[in-house]
């Protein structure tokens, strides 16, 4: 290895080294934790913005559901939808699915980060692990909701009129759902370290949850076993408020409301929308807490 010659001084002609800038790093405080959360969050946004391909590919699945399934099954279902187009009916469900799968990919980025070593850079920083996890989850949630906003732009194609309340409401619900799904994904990522297994597990859990949630069918008068699964599926409590919100903006008959957006019931009790939303939020918080505990305990 003697072919490596080590210059004892700077090479001739090289520019003089710039003056040293000594940096002072203050002790840890809530302020430094906030900075850490913010930069981890921003990194997710920067990466999302750079990854145009992902924005486009993530649109394919919701668009298939909305226009292919929605238009294709229109004739079959026309008799029972009380004049509401099937596309309009499944639109709230599609708003949810787009967020769910984007959030899943956001959470997957933590598995990539581990694989490519970047997770280590974050884990050795003099900040709490919880700040890293919170930044990651918020970042994933923000990215997923931004993806959801693209679908919101399609409301007119399914005859949903815009209003300020609708746009803000949909965005808030998407943010909430995205937060919970990302928290779930990050929780899973703490344990499952290979990308293939992670995506496999996520697909295995999230896809059934989506189908059972009632995103594509009304939740009243389901067979007993499906009704049971539907009620224990957390996604149900994100889809139902979303549909209620969209339907509140539609000019349709009371029968249509009753048939297509029946209230969610627990043993005959109508679950208030606020409680439904709270359920999703509470589950998200629990999973975030587990994710933080998992990452704090690890090396």
């Amino acid at each position, binding site marked *: 290895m003697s072919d490596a010659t080590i210059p004892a001084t700077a090479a001739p002609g090289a520019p003089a*080294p710039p003056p040293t800038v000594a940096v002072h790093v203050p002790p840890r405080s809530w302020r430094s934790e906030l900075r850490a959360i913010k*930069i981890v969050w921003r990194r997710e946004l920067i990466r999302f913005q750079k990854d145009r391909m992902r924005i486009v590919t993530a649109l394919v699945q919701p668009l298939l559901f909305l226009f292919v399934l929605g238009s294709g099954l229109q004739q079959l279902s026309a008799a029972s939808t009380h004049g509401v187009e099937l596309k309009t009916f499944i639109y709230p469900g599609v708003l949810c699915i787009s967020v769910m799968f984007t959030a899943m990919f956001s959470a997957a980025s933590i598995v990539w980060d581990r694989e490519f070593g970047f997770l280590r850079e974050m884990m050795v920083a003099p900040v709490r692990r919880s700040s890293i996890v919170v930044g990651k989850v918020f970042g994933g949630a923000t990215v997923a909701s931004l993806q959801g906003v693209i679908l919101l732009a399609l409301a007119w194609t399914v005859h949903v009129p815009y209003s300020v309340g609708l746009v803000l409401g949909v965005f808030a619900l998407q943010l909430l759902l995205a937060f919970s799904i990302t928290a779930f994904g990050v929780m899973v990522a703490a344990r499952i370290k290979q990308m293939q297994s992670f995506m496999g597990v996520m697909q295995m859990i999230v896809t059934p949850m989506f189908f059972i949630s009632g995103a594509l069918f009304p939740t009243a008068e389901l067979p007993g076993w499906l009704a049971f699964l539907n009620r224990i599926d957390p996604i149900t409590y994100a889809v139902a408020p979303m549909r209620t919100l969209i339907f509140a903006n539609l000019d349709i008959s009371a029968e249509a409301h009753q048939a297509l957006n029946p209230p969610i019931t627990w043993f005959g009790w109508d679950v208030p929308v606020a409680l439904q939303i709270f359920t999703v939020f509470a589950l998200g918080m629990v999973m975030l807490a587990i994710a933080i505990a998992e990452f704090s305990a690890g090396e």
Partner: protein
Amino acid sequence: MPTPAISVKDLHKSFGDFEAVKGVDFEVATGEVFGFLGPNGAGKTTTINMLCTLTRPTSGNAEVAGFDVATARDDVRRHIGLVFQDQTLDGYLSAEQNLRLHAELYGVEKAAVKPRMEQVLRMVGLWERRDSQVLTFSGGMRRRLEIARGLMHSPRVLFLDEPTIGLDPQTRASIWGYIRQLQRSEEITIFMTTHYMDEAEFCGRIVIMDHGEIVALDTPAALKEAVGADRIRIETDDDERAIAELAERFGLEATVSEGAVSFAVADGEEFVPRLFAELDVPIRSVNLSRPTLDDVFMSHTGTTIRDAEESAAKNRNRAVMQAMVGRR
């Protein structure tokens, strides 16, 4: 006396039954370039991980930049820079974004981020490439960027784990250039592991670690001196007679290897004139070599660093096998 940059007392680390680090003691003064040498599996990485707060010591204690690695983890982390063997950059971000992210995570004062970034990027020659995505960088550029990043928060101690492994000679040379420059321009202590013996020569002091223990600690020159013997190789017209005469007249044991007679002797420079004067066999060429760190390693561990690595790998496999069998 100022506090040492690193102070380690009776540090142990066990993984189950396996004792990876068996009680090491050493001190590193501020401003030193301290080399940690040994084959893979000698306990180097475990030791460095304990000093960087990535692994908790089983017993004993260690202070880095004046803070205890077990009880003041974040204080240690604020004062150290880390460059790992495996890269830890975000390839989708630009060089500048990677550094900025680091500065934010370490809480570097906002006003200092820009000038410091320019300084460290200029030092490693990547200032012009600051807006390029790291994905487009070569292996050497990435390593240089990691070094720049490790320096962003002006650490008191910079840990370099095999900083030159897998790099071309030119990049290796420039990395050593940065280390020299840093020593002059900042009050920084550099702690590095390597298993390139020729690079260990550039360290102020080195530790040789083997089987979880420190077997030697001194300056490279002193370590080599302690080995004592220089090696002389001569080409002669009659090797057999030369060997016989060397044994007879000087009491030296010589062997033939690669077509030359080779033997070890103290003070080789003074011995060569005597050799010419007293040996009756015509000598065609002579080659005198000083002991290298390879010889130092050999004298302390009884094996070359390459062989040590092979046997360490075998031991590891055996340990894994035993662990698997034992669990059943």
